[in-house]
């Protein structure tokens, strides 16, 4: 049995959206009864409209990341399933102002298929529309096939940059280049300590034996790079950082954004302990943390574990990071 607070399993995503819109009724609007939700003031003149989206079940991603200085609309699929093109197209139409539309989402096969179809449909309507794919997760493919990697926990940061730059008036093609640079410099890797269950079925997406943890586990239970005996927070931190640093690679005097993300049932207490260990280790490596964030930015239901994201910053990225952002799921004052 699913031990979750739900009603009709088939109605989960619909009720999720309803609850979200009720709590944020002054800020967002649902497009009809679709799974497309947009900022209430959409479409906004003078800015590229930012459309994000993907499967549900990763809250606050993506639903809660629409707002001033963040995304303009979101298209949601069912739990762990890409949204269909009709929802995506509704989101696109809701935010299409006078500067075009950007689709910004994670690189999963299902998402790419559906967003591409929607993009084609929008182009047929004469909309100026481009795509940026997020693919920060290093365990999902070797560096040579970086374009095959999936997107994970750098999402809210990339979305934040997109929101700030589009708000500042950056045009669509410059925005695509800017965000691709940010994605290019983003690296994430996570570790799981226990599985999550799909709320509709109550089935676990995988099993992790007592005393084991897995590096590189995907957000939907896709297997990782290695399963090991449970490590301490410090060993975990160092192992993840070693992988991340080697991948870009990050080098001495690099200035980075550090994000420590909780997947679901891992406590903030644990995240802060990991943070302490990472700060110490990166300081040994003379890599400078420009800013550090901890929290649940991208969850995978009640999975236990954390992921770490390192993003190499330059002045342009810092500038747009520092601008304020106000979304229900992410605020930067």
């Amino acid at each position, binding site marked *: 049995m699913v031990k979750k607070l739900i009603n009709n399993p088939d109605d989960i995503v619909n009720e999720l959206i309803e609850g979200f819109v009720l709590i944020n009724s002054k800020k967002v609007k649902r497009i009809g009864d679709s799974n497309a939700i947009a900022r209430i003031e959409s479409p906004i003149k003078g800015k590229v409209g930012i459309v994000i989206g993907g499967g549900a079940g990763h809250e606050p991603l993506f639903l809660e990341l629409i707002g001033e200085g963040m995304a303009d609309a979101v298209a949601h699929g069912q739990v762990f399933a890409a949204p269909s093109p009709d929802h995506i197209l509704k989101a696109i139409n809701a935010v299409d102002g006078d500067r075009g539309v950007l689709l910004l989402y994670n690189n999963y096969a299902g998402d790419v298929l559906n967003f591409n179809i929607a993009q084609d449909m929008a182009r047929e309507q004469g909309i100026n529309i481009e795509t940026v794919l997020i693919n920060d997760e290093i365990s999902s493919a070797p560096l040579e096939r970086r374009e095959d990697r999936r997107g994970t926990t750098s999402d809210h940061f990339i979305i934040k940059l997109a929101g700030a730059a589009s708000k500042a008036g950056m045009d669509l093609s410059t925005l695509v280049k800017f965000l691709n640079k940010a994605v290019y410099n983003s690296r994430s890797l996570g570790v799981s300590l226990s599985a999550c269950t799909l709320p509709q079925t109550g089935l676990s997406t995988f099993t992790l034996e007592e005393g084991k943890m897995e590096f590189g586990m995907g957000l939907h239970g*896709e297997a990782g790079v290695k399963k090991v005996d449970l490590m301490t927070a410090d060993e975990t931190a160092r192992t993840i950082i070693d992988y991340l640093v080697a991948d870009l690679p990050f080098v001495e005097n690099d200035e980075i954004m550090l994000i420590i993300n909780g997947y679901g049932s891992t406590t903030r207490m644990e995240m802060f302990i990991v943070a302490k260990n990472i700060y110490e280790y990166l300081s040994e490596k003379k890599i400078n943390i420009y800013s550090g964030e901890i929290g649940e930015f991208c969850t995978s239901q009640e999975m236990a574990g954390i992921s770490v994201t390192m993003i190499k910053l330059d002045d342009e990225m810092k500038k747009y990071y520092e601008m304020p952002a106000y979304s229900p799921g992410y605020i930067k004052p």
Partner: protein
Amino acid sequence: MQNVFKLNDFIEILKIADTEIDKNKQYLSNLDSVIGDGDHGITISTAFSKINNEISSRNFDSIPDLFKFVGNLFITSIGGTTGPIFGYIFIGMASSLIENKKDEVSLSEFYNMLSAALQKVTSIGKANPGDKTLVDTLNAAVSSLKESVEKNMELSEGIKAMAVEAQKGAESTKDMVATKGRARYLGERSLGYQDAGATSVFIILNAFNIYLQNSQ
């Protein structure tokens, strides 16, 4: 005994597919939860209910009309990997008939339909036979149809043979290492488990067989 499919046969077959998928919903989700993310049974069964709902309130001019409608519904409103991939199967099937407003389909025309579907899905999804996806089922079905057409078989015999081979195709994914879809992250660990999509395509193809067997 009928030797062609007519429009109404396909409508009935889609109903059988819906029922059969529904029966196997949990099983399909189980398969997907071992090597995928556990939602395939839900997605595909929701899709078939939706499709049968929409079909029942509509009239269709021709067989390609029906298949185009089903394909587009899959593509635009289902989502997941399932939506587009299964959508293009139906679109592919329609495409081989689209020239003339067809109202009957022989075994050899059915072979052309499925063959076009296979091509379409391969070009969209980039999965080849052996990659542990529904392409393995489709491919086995197409090969079987080809042989049956060459042997000049009756419709129901050819479809029965196709269902048998489709099942084998689905089962053959057990011994494959996934290189496409979510299961690919598992690599060698995906060995020994049958692919969910390959199984649901078998169930759907088998609906054609069940229909013909029942109507005899």
